[in-house]
């Protein structure tokens, strides 16, 4: 049996891990969707092929994250999703559309393929933006003010840019030839927008949230936290220098932008988590107030301790199987 307070922390950590993995993993495949060119047929097939074996498992992290919120913090789940009812509906419908478009574009009558490509692209974009919007509203404590809506729209663009960036980095790693050259150009552009977005959110967030401000600029915290934005900034600068030289001979360093982007995601996530912990609904509900019964949480935790490492190992196996440059996607 685990202690109730510890359980709440363990579960919020597990949920945070799922959200982070979701943002990185589904982030790159949503990004590839946003980048899908509607004209160059050949490239669009290769791009889709690069995410084909993974997108389904990537999306499962969202189901786990939402599932953990529902299971471990049911009060927070209903509070958050009642506030975000319509953006959630937009998110779900976009995810449905892009998920099925992935299959329909390959299987439906050939004349319908351009339509499903469009659905895939728009669905990916709307799903990313609605996630950004929901994140913005969450950060703003679900206020119905002009400031909150503006911030959420900014956040919507920021998240879409971040996903596009990591999607472009994924393509640099997984493709070759003219598509790789194209992906480098995409990464440069979206990386810049993403950088401006992160900067804007980091400046605006403490200004409009006094609690966040206090937390970041108290003396011991400030020194401890300073490395976060510094490393983040450093990684962006480093990535830009690397991107300038890509694609390099023998494809050296094609994995660097993706790794850097994932690390940036991780740092931003830690920063965000730090701004609000232990609140699960900002300024309203802490993880301890919202947690389920300890006997239920213990029951899942035992399972999670056994199962999560297994999930990691077969996910790693799947990535190893499809390691290297993407080949034509074929059912065998």
């Amino acid at each position, binding site marked *: 049996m685990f202690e109730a307070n510890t359980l709440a922390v363990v579960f919020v950590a597990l949920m945070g891990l799922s959200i982070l993995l979701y943002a990185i993993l589904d982030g790159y495949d949503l990004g590839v969707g946003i980048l899908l060119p509607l004209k160059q047929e050949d490239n669009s097939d290769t791009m889709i092929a690069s995410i084909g*074996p993974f997108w389904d498992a990537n999306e499962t992290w969202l189901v*786990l994250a939402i599932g953990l919120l529902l*299971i471990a913090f049911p009060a927070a789940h209903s509070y958050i999703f*009642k506030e975000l009812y319509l953006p959630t509906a937009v998110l779900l*419908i976009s995810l449905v559309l892009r*998920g099925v478009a992935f299959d329909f574009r390959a299987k439906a009558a050939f004349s319908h393929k351009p339509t499903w490509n469009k659905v895939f692209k728009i669905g990916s974009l709307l799903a990313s933006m609605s996630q950004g919007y929901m994140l913005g509203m969450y950060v703003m404590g679900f206020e119905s003010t002009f400031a909150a809506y503006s911030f959420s729209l900014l956040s919507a663009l920021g998240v879409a840019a971040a996903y596009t960036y990591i999607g472009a980095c994924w393509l640099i790693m997984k493709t070759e030839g003219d598509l790789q050259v194209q992906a480098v150009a995409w990464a440069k552009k979206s990386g810049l927008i993403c950088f401006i977005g992160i900067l804007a959110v980091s400046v605006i967030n403490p200004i409009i949230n006094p609690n966040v401000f206090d937390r970041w600029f108290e003396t011991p915290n400030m020194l401890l936290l300073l490395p976060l934005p510094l490393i983040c900034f450093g990684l962006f600068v480093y990535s830009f220098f690397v991107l300038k030289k890509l694609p390099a001979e023998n494809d050296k360093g094609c994995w660097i932008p993706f790794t850097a982007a994932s690390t940036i995601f991780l740092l931003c996530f830690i920063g965000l988590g730090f701004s609000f912990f232990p609140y699960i609904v900002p300024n309203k509900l802490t993880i301890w107030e919202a947690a389920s019964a300890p*006997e239920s949480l213990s029951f899942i935790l035992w399972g999670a301790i056994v199962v999560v490492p297994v999930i990691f190992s077969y996910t790693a196996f799947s990535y190893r199987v499809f390691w290297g440059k993407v080949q034509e996607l074929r059912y065998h």
Partner: protein
Amino acid sequence: MLDTLILSRIQFATNISFHILFPVITIALSWFLLFFKVRFVQTNDPVWMRAYRFWVKIFALSFALGVVSGITMSFQFGTNWPKFMETVGNIAGPLLGYEVLTAFFLEAGFLGIMLFGINRVSPRVHTLSTFIVAFGTTLSSFWILALNSWMHTPQGYEMRNGVAFPVDWLAIIFNPSFPYRFTHMLIASGLTASFLIAGISAYRLLKGDDKRAPKLTLKIALTVAAILAPTQALVGDFHGLNTLEHQPQKVAAMEGIWHTEKGAPLLLFALPDAEAKTNHFEIGIPNMASLILTHDLNGEIKGLNEFEGNHPPVMPVFFSFRIMVGLGFLMLFVAWTGRIQLWRKKELSPWVLKTLLFMTFSGWVATLAGWYVTEIGRQPWLVTGVLSVKDAATDIASSNVGLSLIAYLILYTVLMIAYLHTIFTMAGRAVEIEEISDDEITKPVITSAIEGLK
């Protein structure tokens, strides 16, 4: 203007009805695929690989629709039914959690290898991946049916301040109706997939496809259906007896029995009248209901009068039940007719093929009808004796729910048209492909993402 409660109910029914259509195919279809794959490994006969390749694409498409329509479910509990999790979240949460942890990741993780990895892993690992996907889909239904059955026949919990707390997890999972509902659902999936395979294979044969694969899959599907259909009738009967024991008001609604009676007739048709608490135009077999339910011609069956104000609406339960049973017997009859004809004449006559094509999606109708019987039959409860549906509903504005409902309805209509159209397009395309050559065994055939182009 409809209120939030009724809109939420329609939305949930819409979402879950759409969702179940795809798992009910993929649960059993994955085992069919494993069978095709294993037979290929055993015999090295390319026809098995041909069957596998065709059906794995339909599997992938159905699976994708199942996954994406399932994601909406995990959000809806919170958005539309907040009191559900607040009251029984301590029970429902872990069961849903185990479904995600043990089943979803397993399916999704190995699906990529199963679909796209045959040339990247050894044949053994590929077969194993196919098995893991099949096992994962079945495990997923295990957890979700454990939760659903617990909502019908809750056990192993105690109420503290209006909130359910787990006491005995084994009693919660293996609650009284679970073994019956789980078996009933798995066989329903087997029948749905069998009739889908038989129907599409029949379509190909009717279109003049003279290859071995559709004939082989048709034969296998008919054989499985011929075995499963009578088994399902038996399991359904046991399930009904279990329901009589735990939810007698549901059985009273299914049988249209308004007043407790001895020697109750089995109604083949009637028009239940909730106002007058009686049936019109009854056609029934005397004493049969009593015989089936109590194994005594004069056995007493409790009527709806014993559950005044606490029983489900009769009309939808009564008719759904008849649609399910009627279809079940039709499937039994068609499967046996087809299988016997195949056995005697080695091929099916055009009218049997046409009947099978007509019944391609009969499993869907029967499955939905069956779920309507059991779910509407639980009303007015969401969790029997613990939480009523109306107490669980959200308080968000009805216009928001109305908006999302309309969006879902449009979306699902479009997707359903696209799905059906695509399946028949794929079947039509398969008709035109040349019969496989021998070197296909050693040299993998390119069926690219742009199938049909090559």
